């Protein structure tokens, strides 16, 4: 997608102003000291090297600022001092105004007196448009600003006041300079990293933030060389992530309000937890969670992502004036060098389809063990997996093997081979759920969970719905799997003990307080069928035919073609299947479910279930 080849080139370019601003500010440091000395000596500009003052609005050159400003007022109708008075600009503000005008003039845009404070409220205007702009230095020579309510004529001691004022301004500028320098450090680290990457010093990143909302077609594309050798896989991941440099997937995730609101609410409702803290955002994507944390008062946020989207994140962060708080690092979390030994909080949106598909959770857990302080906070703190039995014969007829049995009069059953082997990602209607209860089969406490825990076998039990409509006549068609996510504000006293949460806690109930109203500190969301649809939807594990059914189906396939009589028989057989299931009187389904990563592909997910004497495996790919 959006040519990743242009992006690396583009980003440093876009960031250049920042770099320039920082370095010019550093260069000008001395210059300002000079000026200060001048003022202290005699307040006179004549120290030998008279600078040429270039007009703000054309190419004319003047010996001093005042005559230039008079020219601008008379020739171009632009009253610099008037604007300054109107906006009550201090020295700092005047610098911005000068650069704002120069920038517009440089771009060939018209300059009018209709300028508002917000026009000037951009850091970029602290950066001189002209090197060694004599106008900026000359600003010290301008007459004092008249306070809005005071009348002209301040009286005696004017010089002393001026000096004090200038000293004050100077210290303000020093602070500004320190801030900009810090920003520049971030930028420099970024640039050197980008260059390292471009020059091939660092292996090209091969994994990234999220696969969550991948459009299906893209998904298929990304699976290029699945099952091939190790080296090959790296290559494929690379092109896979290149294909995600586009905005679609990020738009889908940002517009998933269930997801994004949950992170926002937790972070903004718990500002006390973030104030002054160092936060690590793993798989930052467009940088949204990092920016939430920065707005919530975090003193430092490290945003890490291995995909090319990090370049857009950096731009976003810069545009939102958060570059001094947030540092973007491009690469795998296991490989990047963090500028701090420890972090207080880890924020990550790592969840994939079926929770663990393509998951980056092992990376998050690795970072937790490596960087999180003992009392540090995990955001989110817990996730749990759920399952329910489903039945919808109409849907199965349209999307199961029957569809392929007759396609425009042709038998295409060859296409249905393996149709039960893959889990399907879709949003399932609640009225097609045929169990009275859903089962929580796995709770992950993200303080204590280890990578090894992500391959597990867990028991489950669900009760089939009774006596409601004719639903219980339908055989069960499969299991639906989804997950809940919890954000607990409680940090563990001892991380090894984790933070307690009932194994069957339901997201939508847990985040309510004792009074049944929304608890402000707790946030949780579900991706289940009863919640608002999310981009994760649910995973459907469709039951294959039992062995007996399979035999019949095979027999039927063999003596294919004898029309009507055969069709009758088919109907009978269908009825038999239903009866058989009823006879067994399966009021309850008990079993075990196993999540594991297939050998040689740690990012895929295999789900294996054993229940009521049957078993089946599904793959999420």
């Amino acid at each position, binding site marked *: 997608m*959006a040519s990743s080849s242009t992006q690396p080139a583009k980003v440093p370019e876009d960031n250049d102003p920042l770099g320039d601003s920082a370095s010019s500010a550093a260069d000008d440091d001395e210059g300002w000291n000079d000026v200060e000395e001048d003022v202290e000596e005699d307040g006179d500009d004549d120290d030998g090297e008279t600078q040429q003052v270039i007009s703000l609005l054309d190419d004319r050159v003047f010996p001093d600022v005042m005559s230039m400003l008079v020219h601008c007022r008379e020739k171009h109708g632009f009253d610099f001092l008037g604007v300054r008075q109107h906006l009550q600009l201090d020295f700092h503000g005047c610098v911005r105004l000068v650069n704002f005008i120069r920038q517009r003039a440089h771009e060939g845009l018209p300059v009018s007196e209709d300028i508002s404070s917000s026009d000037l409220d951009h850091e970029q205007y602290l950066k001189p448009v002209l090197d060694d702009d004599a106008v900026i230095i000359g600003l010290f020579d301008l007459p004092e600003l008249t306070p809005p309510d005071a009348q002209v004529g301040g009286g005696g001691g004017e010089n002393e006041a001026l000096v004090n004022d200038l000293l004050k301004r100077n210290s303000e500028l020093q602070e500004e300079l320190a801030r900009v320098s810090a920003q520049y450090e971030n930028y420099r680290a970024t640039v050197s990293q980008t260059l390292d990457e471009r020059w091939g010093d660092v292996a090209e990143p091969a994994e990234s933030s999220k696969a969550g909302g991948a459009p299906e077609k893209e998904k298929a594309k990304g699976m290029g060389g699945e099952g091939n050798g190790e080296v090959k896989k790296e290559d494929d991941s690379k092109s896979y992530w290149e294909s995600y440099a586009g905005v679609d997937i990020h738009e889908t995730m940002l517009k998933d309000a269930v997801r994004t609101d949950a992170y926002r609410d937790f972070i903004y409702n718990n500002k006390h937890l973030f104030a002054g803290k160092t936060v690590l955002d793993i798989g930052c994507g467009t940088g949204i969670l990092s920016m939430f944390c920065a707005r919530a008062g975090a003193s430092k946020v490290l945003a890490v992502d291995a995909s090319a989207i990090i370049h857009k994140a950096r731009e976003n962060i810069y545009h939102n004036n958060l570059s001094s708080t947030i540092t973007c690092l491009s690469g795998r979390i296991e490989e990047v060098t963090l500028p701090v030994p420890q972090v207080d909080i880890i924020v990550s949106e790592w969840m994939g389809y079926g929770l663990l598909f393509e998951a980056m959770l092992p990376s998050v857990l690795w970072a937790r063990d490596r960087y999180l302080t003992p009392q540090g906070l995990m955001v989110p703190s817990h996730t749990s997996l759920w399952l329910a039995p489903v039945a919808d014969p109409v849907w199965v007829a349209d999307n199961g093997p029957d569809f392929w049995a007759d396609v425009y009069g042709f038998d295409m059953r060859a296409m249905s081979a393996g149709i039960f082997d893959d889990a399907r990602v879709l949003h399932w209607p609640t009225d097609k759920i045929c169990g009275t209860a859903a089962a929580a089969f796995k709770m992950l406490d993200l303080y204590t969970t280890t990578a090894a825990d992500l391959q597990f076998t867990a028991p489950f039990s669900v009760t089939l719905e009774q006596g409601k409509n004719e639903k219980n006549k339908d055989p069960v068609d499969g299991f639906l799997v989804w997950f809940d996510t919890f954000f607990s504000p409680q940090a563990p006293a001892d991380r090894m003990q984790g933070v307690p949460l009932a194994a069957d806690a339901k997201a939508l109930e847990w985040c309510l307080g004792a009074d049944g109203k929304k608890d402000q500190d707790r946030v949780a969301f579900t991706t289940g069928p009863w919640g608002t649809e999310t981009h994760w939807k649910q995973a459907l594990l469709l039951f294959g035919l039992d062995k007996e059914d399979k035999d019949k189906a095979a027999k039927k396939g063999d003596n294919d073609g004898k029309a009507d009589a055969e069709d009758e028989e088919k109907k009978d057989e269908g009825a038999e299947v239903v009866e058989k299931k009823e006879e067994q009187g399966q009021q309850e389904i008990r079993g075990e479910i196993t999540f594991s990563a297939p050998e040689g592909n740690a990012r895929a997910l295999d789900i294996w279930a054993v229940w009521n004497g049957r078993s089946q495996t599904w793959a999420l790919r």
Partner: protein
Amino acid sequence: MELDAAEQQLKGMAHSEQHYFNSYNHHGIHEEMLKDEVRTRSYMNAIVQNKHLFKDKVVLDVGCGTAILSMFAVRAGAKHVIGVDMSTIIFKAKEIVAVNGMADKITLIQGKMEEIEIPFPKVDIIISEWMGYFLLYESMLDTVLYARDRYLAKDGLIFPDKATIFMCGIEDGEYKDEKIGFWDSVYGFDYTPLKETALSEPLVDNVEVKAAVTDPTAVLTLDLYKCTTADLAFEVPFKLSCRRDDFVHALVAWFDIDFTACHKPIRFSTGPHTKYTHWKQTVFYFKDVLTVQQGEEVSCNLLVRPNDKNRRDLDIKIDYKLDTQDATRRVEGACEFKMC
């Protein structure tokens, strides 16, 4: 083993090519195409209703997929059909053809059209469903044209044999705001760096017919008997005349497909005025909003060409100009898009 060899061959290709072919290995995409009734039924009617054209003919199916078109051709009386597809779906197609008792009538060959040899020196008819989004995106028309030049007998037929791209101006303020304006403020943050990217990606989606503000205009007509791959990079100026006082936020493009060789010509459209197809329509947002009055004309220039690096991607440039007496509404601009 055959499958292994095919996979080996795929591995040797450039990534973009691999992705293209591999994306067709999955069931889902074939299911979507087969379930697209407008598409599949039009092909079926064009072939099966014209037995007089297919009887005893040798037919080549370019990009045969599940071989549905090949089987239609056999049903229409073809002497023999050769189906060619690079994707490994062709091994499923072989099973399907066998199960339907047509194995002796249909020869399926896995490989690139340009690299394989077919067991006939010439064919009488070429059938192919080669169209992509915006007709030309990820399209295999160049492969069809290759097959035409290499194999089609003199006076041979092509199904379909005509394709036309149309464009018109649409009022789409609400959706544009949702898709493009969204990036102005995301949870209170300025996300404009992503706005440029969003603007440069044409949107494949369904447009309601009531959104049309201008008359549609044909911007490209391809006669498959005559056109060459050079025609797939084109530049065309055109004018859109406004039907009512409204705003124009975007141009929408769609295509019509004609089977003119049929006894009774068959045509289907993928436009906003007709039934849904999996191609939907393609929307190109302008940076500006045009405020138009009934009877005015918007002058446009469309430039389309395959991307230098990946010929299945498209680079598209649209210039637009609203020239009116009313200086306040006069607008001129250009947008560049990339379909990839």
